[in-house]
């Protein structure tokens, strides 16, 4: 009883420190978690961008014909009229080895929240995709893994149904969907190189939403040359009366991705450093507080407190003093759902070992001092 009372009054005397460390450690943990969450995002984007970069992607967007480009001039630039239809064009670029790629989403079809068709080169640009010679590949989003059936029947044929990995994201420079984006849940992904396959699986009569506009919405070219762009501009001008703006991918990578990742890495490093410094100063402070109480402990020992009592009092103080920062750390980790029992055990065990270590150190030095004769001050 008296021991507990002594520990509590020791703590009360150092309350300011307990509060400061509890608060600061909670803050640092919070910042660390926010940063690492956003880092996960950035680094996922970064990977997606790396895939785009290595595939030498050019983003092609349908735009109104610019004011300063007259139709005639434009016509000249795009070569002679050939009356190629969009269907012909798509059949030509969306094939194995073709240069075109796009993805289309069909909301609410086939009983899924979204059906994504990753077509042409796009079938290779996500964390999942075409496996060996199989084409098409069907996969449900990871959240549906447990409920999926083994097969799916579509357009009169039956195909095996797979599960996309949990990190499945969908990247386009204009719009990035991270792996945890609600729009990527409850979804079916269909990967295919072949425009004909899409036509077969989704007959235009039944799927009116598969319009040329939609096909062109996320259109990209991979490893194209000038010929490819001229051809694309021509067919779009003729069939849709619109212009195609292009931008290469490298510029975008340079601008956003790299610096984002590097900034995040810096912040994480910074906050990790802060955590260690905080931990260090906390332990140093613990050591100093115990040291400062030397006269107190020695006086009690002189008047009858046993060594075990003194050690218990010091350890009790040290553990509770540390407990608040450790606990707030665990608490913050918990509310961010990033703890495992292993992690909690490690943290608590680490705190215990460090606490016992510091207390033993000071305790032995106090007892050595005492055995040389009592001296206060």
């Amino acid at each position, binding site marked *: 009883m*008296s021991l507990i009372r002594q520990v509590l009054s020791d703590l009360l*005397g150092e309350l300011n420190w307990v509060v400061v460390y509890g608060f600061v450690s909670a803050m640092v943990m919070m910042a660390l978690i926010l940063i690492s969450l956003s880092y996960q995002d950035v680094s996922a984007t970064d990977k997606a961008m790396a895939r785009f970069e290595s595939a030498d992607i050019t983003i092609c967007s349908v735009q109104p014909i610019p004011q300063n480009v007259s139709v005639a001039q434009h016509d000249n630039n795009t070569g002679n009229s050939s009356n190629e239809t969009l269907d012909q064009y798509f059949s030509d670029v969306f094939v194995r080895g073709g240069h075109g790629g796009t993805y289309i989403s069909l909301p609410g079809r086939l009983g899924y929240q979204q059906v994504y068709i990753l077509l042409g080169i796009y079938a290779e640009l996500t964390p999942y995709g075409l496996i060996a010679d199989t084409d098409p590949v069907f996969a449900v989003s990871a959240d549906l893994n447990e409920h999926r059936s083994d097969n799916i029947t579509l357009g009169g044929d039956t195909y095996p149904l797979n599960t996309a990995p949990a990190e499945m994201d969908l990247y386009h420079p204009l719009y990035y969907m991270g792996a945890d984006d609600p729009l990527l849940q409850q979804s079916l992904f269909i990967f295919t190189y072949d425009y004909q396959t899409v036509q077969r699986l989704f007959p235009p009569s039944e799927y009116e939403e598969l319009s040329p506009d939609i096909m062109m919405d996320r259109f990209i070219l991979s490893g194209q040359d000038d010929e490819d762009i001229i051809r694309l501009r021509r067919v779009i001008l003729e069939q849709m009366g619109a212009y195609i703006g292009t931008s290469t991918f490298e510029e975008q990578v340079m601008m956003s991705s790299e610096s984002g990742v590097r900034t995040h890495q810096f912040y994480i490093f910074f906050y990790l450093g802060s955590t260690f410094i905080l931990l260090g100063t906390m332990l140093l402070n613990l050591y100093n507080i115990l040291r400062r109480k030397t*006269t*107190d402990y020695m*006086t*009690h*020992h*002189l*008047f*009858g*407190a*046993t*060594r*075990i*009592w003194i050690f218990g009092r010091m350890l009790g103080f040290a553990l509770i003093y540390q407990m608040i920062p450790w606990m707030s750390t665990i608490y913050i980790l918990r509310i961010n759902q990033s703890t495992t029992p292993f992690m909690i055990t490690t943290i608590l065990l680490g705190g215990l070992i460090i606490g016992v270590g510091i207390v033993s150190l000071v305790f032995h030095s106090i007892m050595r001092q*005492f*055995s*040389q*004769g*009592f001296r*206060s*001050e």
Partner: protein
Amino acid sequence: MTQLCATQLSKSYHNYHNSVQAIKHVSLSVATGESVAIIGPSGSGKSTLLNLLGLVIQPDEGHVKLDNLEVSNLSDSKLCRVRNTTFGYVFQDFALLDHLTVYENIRIPLIYRREIPRRTHRQRIRAAAEALGIADKLHRHTDKLSGGERQRVAIARAIACDQSILLADEPTGSLDQDNKDTVMTLLMRLCREKNKSLIIVTHDLTIAQQCDRVVQLQAGHLVAEANYGQ
């Protein structure tokens, strides 16, 4: 009757560079109710001897008997118990804990004396404080007290749970003449009235001469004894 009996005590301190033999083959016994002054030049080993007699430090050689029981080689818990029940320590710098009140300082030995019921603590502390004339200052912090008052708090703590031997290391060192006299009168009165033994380290001869017996240390040896007896 002999209460405390030390035979052939030796003690040396070891440092990195050298070792000092502070006490060399000192024997001393103190009877119940007797007052003994230890005098000697600075560095002669007075404090060391007092620490040995008070079971604060262990002798390298020799042994200490308390009421005819060997106490030199007790376990820590038994040693703590003996210190708690038998000795009241008063040090030159008082060894008060300044973040505590007078009351809490006096209570320290009582915390570790299980057989004295907690409900009687208040009354005992008050009695000790009254005997020393500081009863009105029980709830002040000790750092707000004068030197003489602090001294009396230290003595009150040394008698609060009926310790039978008072050990005082230069208890008057930092006091003016008036306060010296008050403290000495008080200590001698405790000796006579409550039959407590007193061992006091001092280099003030006028104080030493108030004791029943004076022993002199010189470079760790006991060189002279004088009996003043009453």
